C-alpha cells in the first residue's frame, strides 16, 4: 500500500468568527483535525483606555474602566475605586461596603450567566442561552432601577456610591435571589449530566495545576485546576472575611471542571448576596462625608453658598489625590482584577493600569488547545471566558 502523504493546513480563525467572543484571532496549523500549533493574535479592540485616563479627572475614569471588561463593569469600577480610596487614605462607611459586596456578587452572577449561555450555545446547547439571558435580564433590570443604566451603571464612585439605593431595591434583589437557585437547578438539569455536553467538555482543554500557576491564571480557571486561591479569602477586602462562603475548587482542570466551579460560584454568590442584603438598611449613609471628594446633597446645594461652591469645585476641577501608587486587587468574575494607579498629586491620574485576567487566559489558550481537535478549540475558548475588551483594553 502506498504511503499516504498528508500536509498541514494553516487556518485563520477569526477575528470575525462568531465563537471567538469578539475579535480574537487564532492562526491554527492543523494536521487533519489535530491542532499542531496555535498563535493567538490580539489587539483588534485596543482603544487605548489607559492612555485616555491620563487626560481625565479621577471621577471621569470610572465610566472608562467599566467599559474595559464589559461583562463585569461593576467589578472594574470597584477595583478602581478601592485603589484610589487607598491612595486618598479614606475608608467608606460599613453600609456602603455591604452594598458594594452585594453589587459585586450580582455582577459575578451576571457575568457567569453570559458565560454559561454563550458557552452552552457554542457546544450545541442553544436553549441554555435563552434560559441564562432570561435571568440576566432581571439583573440588568436591577441595574436600571439602581442607576438608570443597564450595562455600565457607573454607580460606584470614589468615596462611596453615586446616590442612595432606590425604593424597591431590596424587594427586587430579594425576588431575584429567591427565584435564582431553582433556575440554577434548571441549568444543571440541562447540562451537568447531559451526555453530549459531557463528551464535549470532559478532558477537553486541560491545564495542569503547575501550568495554571505559571501562567498566572488566577480565578475560576486556576480553581478548576486545583489552585485554592481567591482574593476574597486570601487578601480580604470590603469585609469579605466577615461573610460566610466557600471557594469551590476542582482538580481536573478541564472545561467541565470550569463549568462546575462557575456554577458552584454562582450558588456561593447567592449566599453572599443574601447575607449582604440582610446587613443593608434600606436607607442610610451611602458615601463618605468629605467636602474635598464627595459632592454635598442637592438640597444643600440649592440653599447654601458653601455647598454650592463645593459642588462647583468638585464638578469643574475634581479632587486631587496625594502622590503615590496603589494596587488593591479584587476577585472579579474572571480572576484577580485590580488597577495599579499612580498619582502625581494632581486631579488627573498619572497612570492607570488594569490587570486583565482575560489577557493571561488568552496567553495560556495555546497550552490548552495544541494537541486537541479543532472542534474543541471553540469549546475551550468558551470555557476560559475571555472578554476581548479586557484583553485589548
Amino acid at each position, binding site marked *: 500500500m502506498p504511503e499516504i502523504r498528508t500536509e498541514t493546513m494553516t487556518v485563520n480563525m477569526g477575528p470575525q468568527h462568531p465563537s471567538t467572543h469578539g475579535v480574537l484571532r487564532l492562526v491554527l496549523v492543523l494536521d487533519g483535525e489535530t491542532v499542531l500549533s496555535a*498563535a493567538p493574535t490580539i489587539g483588534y479592540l*485596543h482603544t487605548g483606555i489607559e492612555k485616555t485616563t491620563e*487626560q481625565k479627572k479621577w471621577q471621569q475614569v470610572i465610566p472608562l474602566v467599566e467599559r474595559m471588561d464589559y461583562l463585569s463593569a461593576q467589578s472594574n469600577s470597584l477595583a478602581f475605586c478601592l485603589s484610589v480610596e487607598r491612595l486618598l487614605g479614606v475608608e467608606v462607611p460599613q453600609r456602603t461596603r455591604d452594598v458594594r459586596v452585594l453589587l459585586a456578587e450580582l455582577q459575578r452572577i451576571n457575568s457567569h450567566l453570559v458565560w454559561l449561555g454563550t458557552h452552552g450555545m457554542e457546544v450545541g446547547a442553544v436553549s441554555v442561552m435563552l434560559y441564562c439571558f432570561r435571568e440576566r435580564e432581571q439583573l440588568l433590570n436591577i441595574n436600571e432601577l439602581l442607576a438608570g443604566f443597564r450595562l455600565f451603571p457607573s454607580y460606584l464612585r470614589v468615596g462611596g456610591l453615586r446616590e442612595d439605593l432606590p425604593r424597591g431595591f431590596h424587594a427586587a434583589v430579594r425576588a431575584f435571589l429567591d427565584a435564582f437557585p431553582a433556575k440554577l437547578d434548571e441549568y444543571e438539569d440541562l447540562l451537568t449530566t447531559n451526555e453530549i455536553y459531557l463528551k464535549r467538555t470532559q478532558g477537553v482543554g486541560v491545564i495542569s495545576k503547575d501550568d495554571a*500557576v505559571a501562567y*498566572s491564571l488566577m480565578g475560576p480557571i486556576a480553581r478548576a485546576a486545583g489552585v485554592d486561591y481567591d482574593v476574597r479569602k486570601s487578601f480580604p477586602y470590603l469585609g469579605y472575611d466577615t461573610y460566610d462562603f466557600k471557594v469551590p475548587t476542582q482538580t481536573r482542570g478541564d472545561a467541565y471542571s470550569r463549568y462546575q466551579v462557575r456554577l458552584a460560584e454562582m450558588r456561593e454568590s447567592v449566599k453572599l448576596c443574601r447575607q449582604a442584603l440582610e446587613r443593608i438598611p434600606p436607607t442610610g449613609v451611602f458615601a463618605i462625608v468629605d467636602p474635598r471628594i464627595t459632592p454635598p446633597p442637592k438640597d444643600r446645594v440649592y440653599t447654601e453658598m458653601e455647598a454650592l461652591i463645593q459642588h462647583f469645585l468638585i464638578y469643574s476641577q475634581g479632587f486631587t489625590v496625594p502622590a503615590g501608587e496603589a494596587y488593591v486587587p479584587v476577585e472579579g468574575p474572571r480572576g484577580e482584577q485590580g488597577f*495599579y494607579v499612580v498619582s502625581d498629586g494632581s486631579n488627573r491620574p498619572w497612570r492607570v493600569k488594569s*490587570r486583565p485576567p482575560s*489577557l493571561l487566559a488568552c496567553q495560556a489558550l495555546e497550552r490548552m488547545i495544541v494537541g486537541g481537535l479543532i472542534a474543541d478549540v471553540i469549546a475551550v475558548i468558551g470555557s476560559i471566558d475571555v472578554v476581548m475588551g479586557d484583553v485589548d*483594553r
Partner: protein
Amino acid sequence: MDQNTLIASLQDAVPAAQLESVPSVDLQTTMYVSRDELPAVARVLRDRSDLAFTFLAEVTAVDFWPREPRFELVYIIVSIAHRLRLRVKVRLHGADAHVATVSGVWPAANWLEREVWDLFGIAFDGHPDPRRLLMPEDWEGYPLRKDYPVQIRMTPRASEPLQVTEEEFRASVTKDRLTRG
C-alpha cells in the same frame, strides 16, 4: 514575614542586588532592585520555599518623563502559600531602557513584557518573542510614553491588501512557530 526580614533575607541571597525598601500605602511591600540583578532576585523569590512567590500578577511600567531615570518597571507578585504580596520595581534611564526578561522564571511574563515593549518601548533582553502585542506591527512610537503626541490628526493612509503568496504566508507562519519554540 515582615518587610525588613524579607528584604534582609533577599539581600543575603543575592548580595549584588541593591535592594531599597520604600513605604507603600496599600500594604504591599515595595522595593527597588538594581536592573542587572533582577533575574537572580526573581529566581530566589519564586524558588525559596519560605517565599514561594509563584504568581506573577502584573508587569507594567510608569513613565515619569521628563524626570530621569524616567521609567519604573513594576512587577507585582503573590505568594499564595504565605499570603504575601510584593511589588518589585526597577528604575530605567530613557537612553538605556532595557532589562533582562523574567519570562524564564514566570512564563506569564511573556505577553505582559510584550505589552510593556509595545506601549513603552522598554526592551526585554532574551525575550522569546519580542514583538508588539496590541498595536499593529508597523506602528511608530510607543503610545504610553508621556512624550508621545496625543490629539494630533494624521492623514489616513490607504491600506493595500497584503501582497503575499500562499507559500510566503505558510513560510512565515512556520517560521513564527519555530522561533516561538
